[in-house]
């Protein structure tokens, strides 16, 4: 390294690393979809106060928010093979698991982490929908399911969108932790590149810029989405 922050070298790094942006995005989007489903399930269980499952949901949200995502990923990565061994009593299932790519474990760990946060967001959003709405639907003879999915959820979704976008941005940044269990996404690739070329400063500057620009794109997207979704709020407030 004779030249400090050589622009040609920076461009080379950029060309190499931009190929890994889709992997990071895929991991983030996939995790987001799964954690939305998980959070929705947990929220409904807590909202309806289902006897035991609702309590389990409470405990899950408490733990999911109190644990660093790093530890959740490690628990998924090291814990599931042990769990399977305990259930089957042999080492065979662990052998089977070694065929699963580590990115699946990363997605699972991040899903558990994000799901807990989203469950709290959904709970807040549901509370912000007027109680009279549910009463009105039930009084006109809708079943609880119809009322929830047709009337309550669409309104709650509007409230939840800004916070969900925020959570997605957090998740996008959180995917960088996946490299700890040998997933080669943007940050993992950057690490390999940095130690191969012994050029830490340059590589991490480029990586930071890639993450930064991705975040800014999604921030803009979220604000457009929020503006469009809040149409009915703007109309009623006029």
């Amino acid at each position: 390294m004779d030249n400090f922050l050589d622009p040609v070298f920076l461009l080379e790094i950029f060309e190499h690393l931009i190929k890994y942006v889709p992997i990071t995005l895929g991991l983030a989007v996939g995790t987001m979809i799964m954690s939305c489903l998980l959070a929705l399930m947990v929220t409904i269980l807590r909202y309806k106060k289902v006897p035991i499952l609702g309590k389990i949901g409470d405990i899950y949200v408490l733990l999911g928010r109190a644990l660093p995502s790093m530890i959740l990923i490690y628990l998924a990565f090291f814990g599931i093979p042990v769990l399977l061994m305990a259930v089957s009593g042999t080492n065979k299932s662990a052998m089977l698991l070694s065929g699963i790519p580590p990115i699946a474990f990363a997605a699972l760990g991040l899903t558990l982490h994000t799901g807990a946060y989203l469950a709290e967001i959904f709970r807040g959003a549901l509370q912000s929908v007027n109680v009279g709405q549910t009463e009105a639907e039930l009084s006109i003879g809708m079943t609880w399911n119809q009322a929830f999915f047709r009337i309550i959820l669409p309104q709650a979704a509007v409230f939840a969108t800004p916070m969900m976008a925020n959570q997605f941005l957090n998740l996008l940044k959180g995917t960088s932790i996946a490299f700890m269990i040998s997933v080669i996404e943007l940050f993992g690739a950057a690490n390999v590149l940095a130690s191969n070329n012994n050029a830490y400063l340059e590589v991490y500057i480029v990586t930071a810029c890639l993450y930064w620009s991705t975040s800014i794109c999604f921030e803009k997207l979220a604000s457009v989405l929020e503006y469009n979704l809040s149409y009915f709020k703007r109309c009623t407030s006029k």
Partner: protein
Amino acid sequence: MGTIFSFEYMIKSFPTLLSMVDVTILVTVVSEFFAIILGCIIALTRINAIRLLDKVCAVYVSFIRGTPFLVQLYLICFGMPQVLNYFGMENPRSIPGILYVFLVMSLHEGGYIAEIMRGSILAVDKGQMEAAKSIGMTGYSAYTRVVLPQAFRMAIPALGNNVVSTLKSTALIFNVGVVDMMRRAELMGSFSYRHLELYIDIAVIYICLCFLVQLGTMMLERCTRMKNSTVS
């Protein structure tokens, strides 16, 4: 490997891991202290719209919020020695890693606290500032004596959340060579092949710490609220 999950080993290794908790607490406290100072300075710069500086602060906050903590950590911990070397420092690797960690954590949390403080300073009634100015206070004393104490009281819940997230980010600092609970667990795990037990131990420690922080926040909130009610 005899049993699949050894409860005994989990209990036995708990004190060893707990003895490393001081690093986690030290990093959290030190970086949160500097982050609050930095956050207040940035927030005041942006609110008072000091020319050019507020643009710099806006870009800084956007950068901190737009890039992962790990990237910032690596950028400073591995990139900084390179910069220091370029500017003629003899042996930048001799600086202990924990100092770099203090720097990164303060800068990172400072960016987030800046937004929290900006919100809560703006939430303080405008009349307070005007009243303070009208009785002849300078800008500095008006902020430190009137506006900031009120802003801090409003910011306590958000700052508590921030302390929790700082606490949780400390699980990542072992990546740059600081020996904390995570590093110790990794070392112990490579001897005993019992990673799961060790990480469950750490999870328990983190839950306790988060719980304590939340308890502290709630108590602080209650104290400040009582003071307020006696005044009014």
